[in-house]
């Protein structure tokens, strides 16, 4: 394995692991996460719950795909778009002067201010972009042990 390959795999696992770490607690506490979403005061009441129901599953699905190395470009692109949404939402909270917990990692917690969350999301955005540009999904077909995973491809 070359240094380039090791770095590529390391960044992919880091991004995947990060979103698994972020998504699983939200799946386990959707009500708490809905409270975090409601705190941004952007959506009608019911849609806070729709976001709380769907977004964590998107994070975890993409995280799993990145960790197992399947559909890496698509997963990285989805996370990149998701991160852009987060950045937009957090920026709006800063502009409106809302001092709220971002709800990024631990639902219902009080761990990260909007400014801290914005800086973190910008770093994650860069990481997702690097993983996206480095990804080469065609390599999947050269590994017979992974062929069963190809059935999940679109």
């Amino acid at each position, binding site marked *: 394995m070359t240094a380039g390959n090791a770095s590529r795999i390391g960044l992919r696992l880091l991004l995947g692991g990060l979103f698994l770490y972020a998504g699983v607690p939200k799946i*386990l*506490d959707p*009500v708490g996460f809905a409270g975090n979403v409601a705190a941004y005061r952007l959506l009608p009441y019911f849609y806070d719950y729709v976001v709380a129901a769907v977004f964590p599953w998107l994070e975890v699905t993409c995280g799993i795909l990145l960790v197992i190395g399947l559909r890496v470009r698509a997963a990285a692109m989805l996370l990149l778009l998701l991160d852009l949404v987060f950045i937009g939402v957090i920026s709006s909270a800063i502009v409106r002067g809302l001092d709220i917990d971002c709800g990024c990692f631990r639902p219902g917690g009080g761990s990260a201010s909007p400014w801290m969350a914005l800086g973190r999301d910008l770093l994650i955005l860069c990481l997702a972009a690097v993983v996206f540009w480095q990804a080469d999904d065609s390599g999947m077909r050269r590994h017979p042990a992974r062929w069963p995973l190809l059935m999940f491809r679109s």
Partner: protein
Amino acid sequence: MAVIAALALFVGVVWNRTLLRDAWRGNPVSGGAGSVPTLEGVQPLPLGLMQAKEFFDRREATFVDARDSEAFSRGRIAGARSLPVAKLGPGLGRFRQTVPLSSLIVVYCTGFSCQDSRTVAEKLQRTGYATVYVYEGGFPEWQAAGYPVAKGGLDDRR
């Protein structure tokens, strides 16, 4: 990419179908598929500023202040009842005598990082109150929005 997004959407909606159904109907929210239940399997519903103000304007809810009595005296949502988390034992008995179990309750404390409102709300649910909300923005958000507040040591029933 669309397949991944559709898959996540489908699984998320199916996994949280009970939560979404309850939220759609405006009921207190049952625990999601993997969430930790309270004794009754129901968690207090988080409430935003706009919904809290709607309840306030329509006089539909009894607002409960979970902060200590000193903070309550310095300023509170107009009409709120004091039920400090530290004095839940004796306070709850008096509260139960004057507020019917069928009442809609909104509990608040000092904002998003404060857990006292959730503690009091869960206790009220265990006491038998069926519809209990936690207004997570709490008094700081309410006051910053310029909504009605009161000061002094007594409950000011509206």
